[in-house]
């Protein structure tokens, strides 16, 4: 479902060229739970930006759900993100002035889904993360764990083929971190493809496949048994 072939990303800063990703090849299938692990500066964030269609590679090919992404313009990328990627951020990134329900509705609003249907689907997504009772609360009225669950609901609501979680437990204490990881595992067992980006080996160990990245290259790719 994800097919990356010879993908490179080179940043030009003045006269210096920095190779963040160097001819990477990667295949991820449907229903996988993959952890991408690497220290900061390894190219892990760049890879996540590519996978999330926030940026396009300098060279090489990236196919998501059968569609070539690497040559698309900004607005087409936005559409792909809207329909095919669900983001879960370290800092939740909920909009503070909207209620939990409105935050979850937002991707559907950009899809042009009708009001009533958007509300219905957002409530279902919130029910999946057991937060239906808190749907009218604002993010500031929710705990960190609850906020991250709202963010997961927002990622889920469009039923995207890929959920991209960037250090999803990074801003949480260990107990709520485990709760969030359990939700992700449960979502995977229901068939969602999950890509977890982290620098934490213990967290990565929860995934079914670990891809290590260092200096812009994949150094290890192993399936957990």
């Amino acid at each position, binding site marked *: 479902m994800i097919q990356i072939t010879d993908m490179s990303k080179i940043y030009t800063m003045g006269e210096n060229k920095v190779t963040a990703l160097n001819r990477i090849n990667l295949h991820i299938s449907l229903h996988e739970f993959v952890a991408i692990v690497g220290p900061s500066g390894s190219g892990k964030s760049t890879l996540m930006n590519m996978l999330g269609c*926030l*940026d396009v590679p300098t060279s090489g090919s990236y196919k998501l759900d059968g569609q070539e992404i690497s040559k698309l313009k*900004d*607005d087409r990328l*936005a*559409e792909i*993100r809207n329909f095919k990627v669900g983001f879960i*951020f370290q800092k939740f990134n909920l909009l503070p002035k909207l209620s939990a329900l409105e935050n979850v509705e937002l991707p559907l*609003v*950009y899809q042009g889904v009708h009001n009533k249907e958007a509300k219905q689907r957002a409530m279902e997504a919130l029910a999946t993360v057991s937060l239906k009772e808190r749907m009218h609360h604002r993010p500031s009225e929710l705990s960190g764990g609850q906020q991250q669950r709202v963010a997961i609901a927002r990622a889920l609501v469009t039923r995207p083929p890929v959920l991209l979680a960037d250090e999803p437990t990074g801003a949480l204490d260990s107990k709520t971190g485990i709760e969030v990881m359990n939700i992700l595992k449960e979502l995977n067992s229901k068939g969602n493809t999950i890509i977890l980006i982290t620098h934490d080996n213990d967290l990565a160990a929860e995934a079914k496949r670990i891809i290590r990245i260092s200096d812009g290259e994949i150094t290890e790719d192993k399936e957990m048994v």
Partner: protein
Amino acid sequence: MKFIQAYKMAIKSIVSNKVRSFLTMLGVIIGVGSVIIAVGVAQGSTASITSSLSGLGSNLININITGRGSNRNVTYAEIKKFQSDNSTIIANIAPQSSSNATVKSDNLSRSTSVLGTSPEYADINSTTVQEGRFLIQLDIDYNQKIAVIGTAVANDIFKGQSPIGKTMKIMGQQFKVVGVLTQTADGVDSSTDDRVIIPISVATRLNKSATIKSFSAQATSADTVDKSVTILTAFLTKIYKNRNAFRVTNMAAVLSTLNTITSTLTVVLAGIASISLVVGGIGIMNIMLVSVTERTREIGVRKAIGAKKGNILTQFLIEALVVTGLGGIMGIIVGVSTIHFVIGGLKIVPEVYSIPWILLSFGISLLIGVVFGMYPANKAANLNPIDALAYE
């Protein structure tokens, strides 16, 4: 994303920042308000000037004889015959010959203006008497030495006694007072109260000059004013053989000149007032640039979850439009109520509300929202989602 949702988001953002939104609107409120007040004052003064001028009679035509380049003259009899030949167009015509003179009763005197004219003068200028009678045609035909006097003259030289039937001296000649003109001004001496009216035939002898320097004529209706001017000009040209020897003017021409002046005044005042609208627009741009910077992360999140450039642009533009639109509406309320309570209350000029100008200033405030909102909205729309998400 549907328009209504972008609109709801804009309202939400404005409501959650009440003080800032109000301060941003203030520029537009003051701008729109001052345009409406300025135009109201200008048009109010125009209305008041126009109404007092048209009270003088818009059918009025003045003929001034300069005599330049001609040694012929027009007599009272000639012009009176001309009028009666064209009575369907020119209703009345009255000669006017005025001079200054000292008038005396037995022991009191006053310097005043003496106007020689005919009975038609009363109809043309809506002059009435409060006592006695005005001139009649017989007075003119028989050179009667009679006078109709203004209240200022009456009070001065007859000291509270009824002047009717009394005699007075004008330039040494004895006149009998037959009427007192209705007082026009309250207390103050006005030129219409401070004068003596005598028959034109007597006046020309008194001045030892047969030349009548001016006539006032009245067209039968507003529609025949132009035609009256034309035939009078033709008639006088035939007599004087020279277009420069006289001048025919009418009130309509004066009014139209006045209208040009006052409409220029309106535009100038509105123009000055609209500078504050532009300043308000710059204020909006300023605040919106701050708002875009503050909300960089929000924009990043929106873009990450699928907002296109157009979605972000629309959101910020609608915010600007709602701010300027609300500001415009409040400005209209401020402007209209100022005219109603302050200008209407002081009764300096009549209350005038110009609907086209109100709509125009509202339209301009929306335009300012688009123009000055475009740059910040565009800046927001073009943010890179990765950088925006990383913004602290």
